[in-house]
């Protein structure tokens, strides 16, 4: 017919690639995408650097007499000796130091020293003076409660952010339905290629962001002076990345289905509920049960929540190597299964217009 134009038939892979390319380009051009990523990065830096900066360094204390100096030896307070009590008081009044530790002359103090401060009792100085009995731990945890909580929070939060970021897939699908460009797309390429392109495109975007974060997080931790924490986090971070990527693919397929069963943006809320639960559930589950070893172990195998729970367990060092591998395998299997199911529902519902389509109906539609 037309001798000028060279056509090549677009196979499944090429069509998928083109759809993915469009999704990625559209996103990279959106301001919201960069703002979102920027906020996460700034947040990471803020969390690791700010406490050190705002804390203002060590508390300054002056001592009078040998007994006071000895009582504070070995603490991380900045200690300076002055000649007498009035000189110490003057320094406290002028707020050059936070507190003064002076000999106790009333015999009220068991430690033999008194603390002089301006307005409030200086808790860290008091804590430093308090004598606690020695403790012997029979099974010491590798990681303290503080860092563990922070890591759980960060892992769960990043999962939540990426999981919810998948709503863009649902919105994109509805936009295609609502503008009816879907008719042109479906008459040109296989429906499955359209779905695959969306999943691949958004997953690549997510992987890109996850890699950026995986590079940025250690830098932030090092700048904040948390090198020991970094050494502990690094292996868990290495596991967290593949878990997060697979978890995202799983959710991406479900977000696409959520978008395909409705015809208008306004109806999207009703179909997104289930997927949102699958994002929020693991988030809250891990946060609430982080101290319950049994529940956390279960969660670390269940697809969806395994993306957070297994890396958290890895971080706490309670796991042998086969465990994350099994969990990752389970997750990968679920991804394959869900993507297959999703592609059928997606095909069945994509050209449906009108109200929300029940999943069972979308499943059985052949056209």
């Amino acid at each position, binding site marked *: 017919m*037309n001798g000028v134009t060279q056509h090549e038939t*677009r196979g499944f892979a090429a*069509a998928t690639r083109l759809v993915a390319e469009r999704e990625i380009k559209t996103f990279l051009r959106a301001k919201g995408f960069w703002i979102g990523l920027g906020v996460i990065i700034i947040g990471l830096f803020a969390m690791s650097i700010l406490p050190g900066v705002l804390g203002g360094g060590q508390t300054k204390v002056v001592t009078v007499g040998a007994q006071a100096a000895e009582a504070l030896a070995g603490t991380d307070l900045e200690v300076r000796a002055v000649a007498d009590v009035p000189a110490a008081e003057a320094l406290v009044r002028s707020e050059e130091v936070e507190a003064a530790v002076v000999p106790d002359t009333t015999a009220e103090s068991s430690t033999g020293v008194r603390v002089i401060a301006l307005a409030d009792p200086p808790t860290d100085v008091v804590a430093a003076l308090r004598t606690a009995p020695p403790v012997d731990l029979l099974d010491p945890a590798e990681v303290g409660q503080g860092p563990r909580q922070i890591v759980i929070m960060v892992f769960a939060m990043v999962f939540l952010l990426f999981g919810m970021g998948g709503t863009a897939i649902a919105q994109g699908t509805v936009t295609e339905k609502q503008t*009816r460009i879907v*008719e042109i797309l*479906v008459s*040109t390429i296989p429906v499955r290629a359209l779905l695959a392109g969306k999943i691949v495109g958004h997953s690549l975007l997510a992987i890109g962001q996850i890699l950026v974060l995986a590079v940025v997080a250690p830098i932030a931790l090092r700048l904040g002076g948390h090198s020991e924490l970094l050494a502990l986090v690094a292996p868990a971070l290495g596991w967290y990345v593949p878990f997060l990527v697979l978890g995202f693919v799983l959710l991406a397929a479900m977000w696409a289905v959520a978008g395909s069963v409705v015809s208008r943006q306004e109806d999207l809320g009703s179909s997104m509920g289930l997927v949102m639960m699958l994002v929020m559930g693991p988030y809250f589950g891990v946060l609430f049960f982080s101290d319950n070893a049994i529940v956390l172990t279960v969660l670390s195998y269940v697809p969806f929540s395994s993306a957070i729970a297994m890396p958290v367990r890895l971080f706490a060092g309670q796991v042998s190597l086969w465990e994350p591998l099994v969990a990752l395998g389970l997750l990968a299997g679920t991804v394959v299964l869900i993507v297959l199911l999703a592609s059928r529902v997606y095909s069945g519902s994509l050209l449906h217009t009108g109200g929300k389509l029940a999943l069972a109906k979308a499943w059985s539609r052949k056209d």
Partner: protein
Amino acid sequence: MLTVTSVSRSFGDKQVLDGVSFEVRPGRMTGFLGANGSGKTTTMRIVLGVLAAHGGTVAWHGSPMTGAVRQRFGYMPEERGLYPKMGVAEQIGWLGRLHGLDQATAKRNTERLLDQLELGHRAKDKLEELSLGNQQRAQIAAALVHDPVMLILDEPFSGLDPIAVETVLGVLRERAANGVPVLFSSHQLSVVERLCDDVVIISGGKIAVSGARDELRAQYGPARFELVVASDAGWVRDVPGVRVVDVDGPRAVFELDGDAGADQVVLQAALRRGTVRSFTPVVPTLGEIFMEAI
């Protein structure tokens, strides 16, 4: 050539298409006519594989339709749609690539088409920033960018102003002249009358009439003539073999009553009586055929 054979389709209990058969020939503009809800869009969707047929076949050059062939079709859906937030040239180029063009060709074709459709100066704008008429032009560019081997356009002229209609028409005619079969639906009979070479009329899910426009006119028009003379034309009533449809002073419209030569008898009689201003066969309009067919 596109051949649709005995295609049927139901939605639930409602049979929407019933044994629909017609063909779209290369290099011809085929008008697809029908009232609202008669099955035009459903037929087009089935041809494009957007909907499944419950019976019958669609063939391209005699072989069953495949996805690879469909990918080279150009389609303009009735409900227009492109990505609202994507640049005009960018998305038309992308659609060209989706239809199988390489990047350079897609870009070249997009530029050429947008210029042809007088949309070149808006190429970088987002689609949603265009007026509805210009969005329509972009939609047509999207259907044409990959130099389709077959064009299927659902109501391509609705929403266009008369100048835009001419522009779009020029582009479509050029494609048809290159040998591309063009199937377009319309409910505007006058537009179809002017544009199409072939006509397919669908009514209640069945094909009422199909064929070349001129043949249909000849076939559907009972041999009817209009005579205008200088004086009163009432005498035509008395000519044997002639049935008068209307006489209005010097003008008479009549049909032949079986005898094929009777029109010449009337003409000779008129010439004997005096001046003949005009003597023309009356061709039925598509509208008349349409009304008769459905």
